[in-house]
């Protein structure tokens, strides 16, 4: 596992990168674009989280991908190439199967990108970016994004406390277990509501959202950020031009059709590849630089 130096960039760079990549992988259904996005999301998530990510990707994402791919042709019967008929009489078409595969890829890619986003864009970065523009919403968002890990931790605490008085979900007969479980859930809900209000109150007490307040973390937009941001903006513009020219989409229904691959489309593909791989490239470059410096000592 390499130390992620992309996380140390200015939050604006991180946020622009993730919003661009997420939006692009949501809207571009071209197989080349899907492939590029899927591969780079996979590589970056492994780079960020190591073995855990590999396990998660294979255990959960692969079945999800297969399930989504099968689900589409079961309900969607458009397309000119009829492969065979269902028992009900509706046709299964090649186009609907391919569309199912493509949309499943897109789905998994977006989930992977979000897992990377959560690792890189911590809540202090998010608050730094949006704390002054939309204070209320950014506080709510940063709280909501923390809900799941926070609640699982809190439920463990409550359940341990209940175990001490013999009222955990693992104790007693079935009815007692159910009652204890509901009790734990009720404690949890009360705590969650109270905690949210407390957080809001304490933020207000410290003058959150008032003008001329500084943030918890201070970031500087230095030369490194400027160069990366410029490169990223250039790549995004190239990809967007490709989108306007219709290079990035593919028509699935009624028949599959794409624009012919030209030199320009190859340019767009490489631009998209570099854009998606940007953090990986930065990390590897930093790593090489570090090794070089270490070797000179």
């Amino acid at each position, binding site marked *: 596992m390499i130390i992620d130096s992309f996380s140390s960039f200015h939050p604006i760079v991180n946020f622009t990168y993730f919003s661009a990549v997420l939006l692009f992988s949501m809207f571009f259904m071209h197989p080349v674009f899907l492939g590029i996005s899927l591969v780079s999301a996979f590589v970056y998530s492994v780079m960020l989280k190591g073995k855990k990510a590999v396990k998660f990707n294979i255990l959960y994402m692969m079945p999800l991908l297969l399930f989504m791919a099968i689900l589409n042709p079961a309900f969607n*019967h458009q*397309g000119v190439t009829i492969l065979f008929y269902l028992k009900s009489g509706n046709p299964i078409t090649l186009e609907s199967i391919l569309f199912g595969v493509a949309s499943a890829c897109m789905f998994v890619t977006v989930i992977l990108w979000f897992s990377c986003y959560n690792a890189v864009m911590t809540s202090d970065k998010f608050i730094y970016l949006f704390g002054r523009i939309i204070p209320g919403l950014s506080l709510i968002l940063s709280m909501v994004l923390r809900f799941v890990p926070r609640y699982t931790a809190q439920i463990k605490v409550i359940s341990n406390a209940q175990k001490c008085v013999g009222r955990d979900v693992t104790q007693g007969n079935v009815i007692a277990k159910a009652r204890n479980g509901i009790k734990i859930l009720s404690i949890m809900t009360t705590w969650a509501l109270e905690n949210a209000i407390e957080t809001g109150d304490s933020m207000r007490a410290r003058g959150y959202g008032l003008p001329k307040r500084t943030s918890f973390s201070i970031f500087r937009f230095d030369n490194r950020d400027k160069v990366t941001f410029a490169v990223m903006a250039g790549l995004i513009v190239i990809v967007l031009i490709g989108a306007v020219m219709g290079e990035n989409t593919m*028509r699935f229904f*009624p028949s599959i059709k794409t624009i012919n691959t030209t030199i320009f489309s190859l340019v767009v593909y490489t631009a998209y590849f570099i854009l998606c791989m940007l953090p990986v490239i930065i990390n590897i470059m930093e790593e090489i630089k570090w090794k070089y410096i270490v070797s000179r000592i």
Partner: protein
Amino acid sequence: MNRKQLLTAIFVIGLLAIAFFCFGDGNEVVPLSPDDIGQGAQTAVDIPNYNEYTLDDVLDNKGNILADEDMAKESEKSPNMETKQVEKINEQAEDKPNEVPESNKKENPLKNETEKEKLMDPKLEKQKIIERDNKNKDKKDKYLTDPVPEGKPKPVEWQDVKINYDKELTCTLSVTCKSILNNMHLFNMDKLEVLPEDGVIYEAQTVTFYEGESVFDVLLREMKKNKIHMEFVMTPIYNSYYIEGINNLYEFDCGELSGWMYRVNGWFPNYGCSRYMLQDGDVIEWVYTCDLGRDIGGEWAVIGGEE
């Protein structure tokens, strides 16, 4: 600051209003030429015996689904008669526009009606339709079907019918989408390659079916046989299959009021195609509408007609 916000709000509202008035309508539906609509209507008018025949047949079927041998012989003869008559009508329809185009227009009240509808406020029209629908509530059957006019076959639930595979009958089937050709400005251009140039997907031809089968059964079998794509879905509330698309031409592909409708012997039934039990010699036409049936003369089946 406040004034700025107010001005922005007014500006945005103004923009929206301009957009609404400039781009709001461009979706006017061009109805099919009166001759094409008239064709169906004439078949119903010109063959008065025909309706009586089907009615008798239905009555017979109530008592005994297996008809007499004589009946079978009769029905064997009639399809030939039918096709001849249809051919004659086709000839007439082809001749008419050249000879008396004006009288044709007068005969057909449809054009006047559509003009009236354009003048009427769409909201008012909608209210009227809903009111009329509410009045009819008690008269509707279990599957929300308005009473069928006299002389037309009543809906038959496909669950109750036992198909008699020993008895082969014939009917005429055609699938056309000529209405799209008149409304290319509404058409989903991605589907251009599956749109036939003359608007005929399945040319009218005589097909065999088994006694007790519905319009849906025949369509499904013929589309499968001819490798024409078709998608449908069961709608339990109407107890019928709904045809979503034929030949990859789907509902809503030609404007938001478009979709497939069917016509049997020149009449658009006001119930689903699984509930229409076929009689020997029936003429089934599947037609694509771009305007809830108004452009092909089948508005009664969808929104009810004014009396």
